[in-house]
């Protein structure tokens, strides 16, 4: 009986603790931003970095008095990277918590589900990290805006890089390895589309589709060595990139073929996880780089993030940072965070100076697709220990003009027809 009583008391205490009201949003003049980042699981680091960067941007803006007398406030709920749960939270944000903006999202599947809620309730959704091109093409809806590059832009930059490379170091064969799900397949399709668009002649000699989060890549590595591609394009993200590179290195794969990974390969996460083990000469890119561009704004952003968290940011962080500034700029233009239609107009074509913008360029949101238009830089791994624990960083940059990376006008129609 006493043991029962003890459990009942604990259960009761938990219920009481949980029924305490949420932090009160009663202050006046607040721009409420409801974020949905995963804080657990494989994408947890992306969520953690995004929340830290968003809060850093909010502190910067609020310390200068906010926007038109409004303070920004971010609430994040762990999306668990689950679309059905995220839909429920998004609806709570809009109908219950009266948030002004939906924000974030790492997984494209969650992004696609949340954009549907945003469309239904006519509430602006600022996408900061998910890469699926569909959101700004065939699944486009007027209340969605994305402030980081999508896979199409990365692959367009990748195709241009390969075109230039062919002129200096003629290559003929290409192969692709990527996780066997939508993100992996999209990248390969978009790269080939762009190679054809830019008139690059090539022969595809292999496609390899390991499972997402696969622990063993050995069979794929031996197949790649047998197929002897000049270029191996990779579409992994996160821990899969690390595992693949670690397992491929003893086979001497990177001496035989050029490893080319233009979407998520250049993420700082890879450099910090691999340290000195990361081979030199890999060609990588990402949506933001800690050591490019060499501008005061980028340096300040990276240093501030480091001071705040004790680690250097992954690319996801800059997307969230950009998202907060985009919201602040839009509210500044409109004067309040309540007039959604006016905010949509303000965000369309909005120009915003971001850490990833090189000298002389300002990112802007394309009014037709609501996709941010940004420069993309592709680099090669080189020794550099300025950003510990990384021992290699990217260098020998090739820069691609933002306008060259956008999908052609008929691209959305083409996708819809498929």
């Amino acid at each position, binding site marked *: 009986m006493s043991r029962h009583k003890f459990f009942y008391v604990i259960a009761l205490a938990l219920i009481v603790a949980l029924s305490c009201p949420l932090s009160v949003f009663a202050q006046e003049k607040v721009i409420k931003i409801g974020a949905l980042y995963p804080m657990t699981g494989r994408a947890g680091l992306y969520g953690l970095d995004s929340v830290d960067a968003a809060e850093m941007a909010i502190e910067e803006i609020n310390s200068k008095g906010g926007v038109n007398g409004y303070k920004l406030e971010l609430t994040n709920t762990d999306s668990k990277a689950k679309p059905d749960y995220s*839909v429920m939270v998004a609806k709570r944000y809009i109908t219950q918590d009266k948030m002004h903006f939906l924000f974030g999202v790492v997984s494209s599947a969650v992004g696609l589900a949340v954009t549907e809620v945003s469309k239904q309730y006519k509430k602006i959704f600022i996408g900061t990290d998910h890469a699926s091109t569909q959101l700004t093409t065939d699944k486009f809806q007027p209340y969605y805006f994305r402030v980081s590059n999508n896979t199409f832009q990365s692959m367009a930059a990748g195709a241009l890089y390969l075109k230039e490379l062919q002129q200096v170091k003629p290559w003929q064969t290409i192969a692709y390895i990527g996780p066997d799900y939508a993100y992996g397949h999209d990248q390969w399709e978009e790269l080939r589309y762009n190679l054809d668009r830019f008139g690059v002649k090539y022969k595809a000699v292999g496609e390899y589709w390991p499972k997402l989060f696969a622990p063993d890549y050995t069979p794929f590595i031996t197949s790649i060595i047998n197929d002897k591609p000049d270029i191996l394009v990779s579409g992994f993200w996160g821990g899969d990139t690390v595992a693949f590179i670690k397992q491929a290195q003893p086979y001497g794969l990177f001496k035989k073929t050029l490893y080319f990974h233009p979407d998520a390969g250049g993420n700082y996460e890879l450099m910090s996880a691999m340290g000195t083990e990361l081979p030199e000469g890999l060609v990588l890119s990402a949506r933001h780089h800690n050591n490019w561009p060499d501008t005061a704004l980028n340096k300040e952003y990276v240093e501030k993030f480091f001071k705040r968290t004790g680690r250097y940011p992954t690319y996801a962080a800059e997307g969230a940072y950009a998202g907060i500034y985009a919201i602040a700029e839009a509210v500044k233009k409109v004067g309040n965070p309540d007039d959604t239609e006016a905010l949509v107009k303000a965000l369309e074509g909005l120009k915003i100076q971001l850490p990833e913008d090189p000298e002389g360029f300002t990112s802007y949101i394309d009014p037709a697709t609501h996709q941010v238009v940004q420069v993309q830089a592709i680099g090669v791994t080189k020794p550099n220990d300025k950003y510990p624990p990384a021992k290699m960083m990217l260098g020998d940059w090739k820069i691609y003009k933002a306008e060259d990376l956008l999908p052609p006008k008929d691209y959305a129609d083409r996708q819809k027809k498929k």
Partner: protein
Amino acid sequence: MNQSSGAREIILLGLFLLVFGSVPFIKQSDYHLMLANHVLIWGMFAVAFNMLFGVTGMLSFGQALYYGLGAYSVGLVVKNYGSAMFLPALGLGLVLTIVISILVGLLVIRLSGVYFTVLTLAFGQLAWQITFRWYRFTGGDDGIQGIMPSGLLENHTVYYYFTLALVVVSIWFLWRVANSPMGLVLRCIRQNPERVRFLGRRVRRNQLRIYVISSFFAALAGGLMAGVTNSIHPDMFYWTSSGEVILMAVLGGIGQFFGPFIGATVIIVIQDVVGARTEYWSLIIGIIMMIMVLGMPKGLVGEIRGLMARYAAGKVNRG
């Protein structure tokens, strides 16, 4: 079933209708309606699952197969033929489920215990893999979005009452099954299948029947959920969906007919309340589950019934 227990069930049903029927009037926002929808649908799913697990003793770890099948039937038909096909698609999902559950059921019921559990898990995972990788047809990991019910059902409140009506009818049907002679045979199968055979009853036929019935309502839950969230995802086929429904049943009490429904309610509300406050939601849910398993082994409803019985006995003794 005696008269007093029948009256009690009618009172319970009335109370159930009153509570859930009044949600559209007392809700503060659309979100509450959605939460109630989740509770109803998962509750029905959990009760149907428990007919298999708690009543017949068949722990299926693959009911997500039918939950996903119901959802994807609706999703794919609506995506390709428009939202006017929402209801026919729901029906199609149920018909497909009957066919597939008979075929799969004929294979899985040949095994019992942990082998049955593992085989059901394998079928569930197979369906998940196909959905996840057949990108051109199912949309792969992107899932399917924009699944809107058409006509009157487009209205959230009407859809809620539609769900409520289907859930009430389903639970009533399952309750009748549980209390029928077939229900008695199922309980006997759980306790001693050999003896049931000696008594001249067919064990496998009854197992197959309840497997099909339980799967049917799992598919109905999936189809209805597609209309609530308006988007679906291969995760619905994943073993975690099967795991979640097991957790709901265990939490509420597998020995009680309504236990799993209460379990579903508690888990959904806790996930929502805890998830809104902390990212350590899994820790809190873990602690709650630990308390439940150690302190309330009969589940919430089982323990409450136990307490009520003890209180009544105390009153008799004192009286």
